């Protein structure tokens, strides 16, 4: 019989105490695992937002963090809209009606407008154009489509769905969906046809419902009121125009955008960041709009909220694990009287002091590993149970197999060391057992 076998039988001998100790450890580990995994997932969610295909967001004056949260993470509320002219300032001559380069066109590689404010079954609706999916994939370049295709400029009432939206709502290419205005229970707009479904990116894009900006503008309440307008409803105009096949686009004077996603140009030998810093300063000195650097804002968000919360959670989990370790100590000290007699018998049978010490330590390690394993499974179960809620709020798919691999791998040796430390006192007591005294 090996020392491990002896330790295991010692545990079985004190089954109730051992089970309670392991259970308390399991609950502690479950809490630690759930915290670690959830923390890692949320952190990954924010970090994924930093790997964007653009390096600047231009929007209405206000909080840059709010602009980033709204535009990148599709959370929080839009600040305000900026005039269509601000967007035009970023466009090259070829894409402008006046045939002149926009004010900032030379500094910009890509500029994509987004319009927000509508919802579809809990998801944000984003009005944009085909350039978004051609140029702004995380890391640059085009998005991959799991099904269907990109938006088309002439198909006003088409949309593209993020992977999570399509999966959760069971929508497929060719299906229709009708966004609601301003809130989930707001008035329903015209239906859009699903033209494409994006492959999963692991970024907030997965949670977006993207519609052709031209169709978005034609919905009730989306046109900027103009004093000298003809009084006709743009939506009504669209309805009238759609049947013949060519809808009438909303006039530029009635357009606004919520934000402009900008990838700055990188002239030969010059990093895009340098160009971005110059443009950032110029825009923020102006009156019409503000520019936010998403990576900087995200870092600030991390420093302000995520890191302190992470620290507090780590402290709490460390305390929980410490309490569990004390649990092992209490349990083993509590049974030390009973153990002394058994140790004396084993020593009389020829067991060396080192062997009885190892047996007690192995007992603690077995309890820690057993309780830790149950706690690990329980922790992942908790994460899986919370998964749908986390996914809905962060866009990161979370399930039973979501993990914080480095921290979880460290947990195993940490638990073993902790168990050994906790059992050291009773193990030393076993080591010093006076055989002659106990055998009488």
């Amino acid at each position, binding site marked *: 019989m090996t020392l491990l076998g002896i330790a295991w039988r010692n545990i079985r001998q004190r089954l109730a105490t051992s089970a309670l100790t392991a259970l308390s450890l399991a609950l502690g580990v479950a809490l630690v695992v759930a915290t670690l995994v959830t923390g890692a997932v949320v952190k990954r969610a924010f970090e994924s937002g930093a790997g964007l295909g653009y390096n600047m967001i231009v929007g209405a004056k206000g909080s840059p963090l709010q602009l980033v949260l709204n535009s990148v993470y599709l959370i929080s509320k839009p600040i305000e809209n900026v005039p269509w002219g601000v967007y035009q300032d970023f466009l090259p001559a070829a894409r402008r009606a006046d045939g002149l380069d926009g004010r900032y066109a030379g500094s910009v590689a890509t500029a994509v407008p987004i319009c927000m404010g509508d919802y579809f079954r809990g998801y944000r609706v984003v009005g944009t154009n085909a350039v978004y999916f051609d140029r702004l994939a995380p890391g640059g370049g085009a998005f991959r489509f799991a099904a269907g295709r990109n938006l088309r400029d002439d198909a006003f009432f088409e949309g593209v769905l993020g992977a999570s939206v399509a999966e959760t709502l069971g929508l497929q290419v060719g299906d229709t969906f009708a966004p609601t205005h301003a809130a989930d229970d707001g008035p329903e707009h015209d239906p859009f046809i699903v033209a494409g479904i994006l492959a999963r990116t692991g970024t907030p894009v997965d949670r977006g419902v993207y519609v052709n900006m031209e169709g978005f503008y034609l919905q009730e309440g989306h046109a900027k009121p103009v004093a000298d307008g003809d009084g006709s409803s743009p939506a009504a105009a669209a309805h009238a125009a759609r049947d013949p096949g060519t809808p009438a686009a909303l006039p530029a004077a009635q357009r606004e955008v919520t934000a402009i996603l900008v990838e700055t140009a990188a002239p030969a030998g010059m990093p895009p960041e340098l160009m971005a810093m110059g443009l950032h300063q110029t825009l923020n000195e102006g009156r019409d709009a503000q520019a936010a650097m998403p990576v900087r804002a995200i870092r600030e968000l991390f420093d302000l909220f995520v890191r302190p919360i992470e620290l507090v959670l780590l402290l709490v989990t460390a305390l929980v694990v410490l309490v569990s370790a004390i649990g092992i100590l209490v349990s083993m000290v509590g049974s030390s009287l009973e153990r002394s007699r058994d140790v004396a018998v084993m020593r009389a049978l020829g067991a060396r002091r080192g062997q009885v010490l190892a047996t007690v330590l192995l007992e603690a390690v077995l309890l820690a590993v057993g309780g830790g394993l149950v706690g690990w499974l329980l922790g992942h179960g908790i994460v899986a149970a919370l998964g749908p809620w986390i996914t809905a709020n962060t866009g990161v798919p979370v399930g039973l197999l979501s993990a914080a691999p480095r921290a979880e791998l460290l947990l195993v040796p940490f638990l073993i060391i902790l168990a050994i430390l906790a059992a050291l006192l009773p193990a030393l007591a076993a080591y010093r057992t006076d055989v*002659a005294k106990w055998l009488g």
Partner: protein
Amino acid sequence: MSIAPVIQLEQVKKSFRLPGGETAAVLDVPAFAVAEGEQCALEGQSGSGKSTLLHVISGILRPDAGRVTIDGIDITRLDEARRDRVRADKLGLVFQQFNLLPGFTALENVLVAMSFGSGKPDRWRAADLLAAVGLSHRLHHKPAELSIGQQQRVAVARALANRPRAILADEPTASVDAAHQGQVIDLVRGTCTEQGVALLLVTHDPAIAAQFPRRLRLEEFNRAAVRT
């Protein structure tokens, strides 16, 4: 040619420090030996040092002076770990209260003893030892599920686990009622005879001591006992 002793004590002294700081001599044995295969009953009054003698012979306690030889090995020159190994390999111990490990089955109690010896634990041999004491049907029962007599049998089988040269039995009938004392002695003696193992059995019962071919009183060779 005389038979080589399995247990031999020469000029062995052992004393304990009392709480008041005084020293009390418990053992002062000029010479004592048990030969190979010999069966010896050791009588003595309560407190005469019988248990201390067994602890010194088994290497649990180290004498203050003198030499203790087990199967030719002078254990007084060995460190504690080596004395433990000699005890595991050369001696089998049977205790007053049987001292079986309560969380282990009968078979496991024998296997535990094997695991501390030099050989590898052998389940078949452990089962054979238990069968030899009539417990082949109780291999997987824990001590609490066994009768007193059966527990004693497990203790005897366990003492033989590592093919010892001698068994030290410390009043093995103390917890057994009078009706079963004879059976226990027959079991221990019979098993030792069968296995060719020497037996040193401590008892305070003259009737039991009378069954042994060699019968000693501790006071006869322990000068410390005489002084007290």
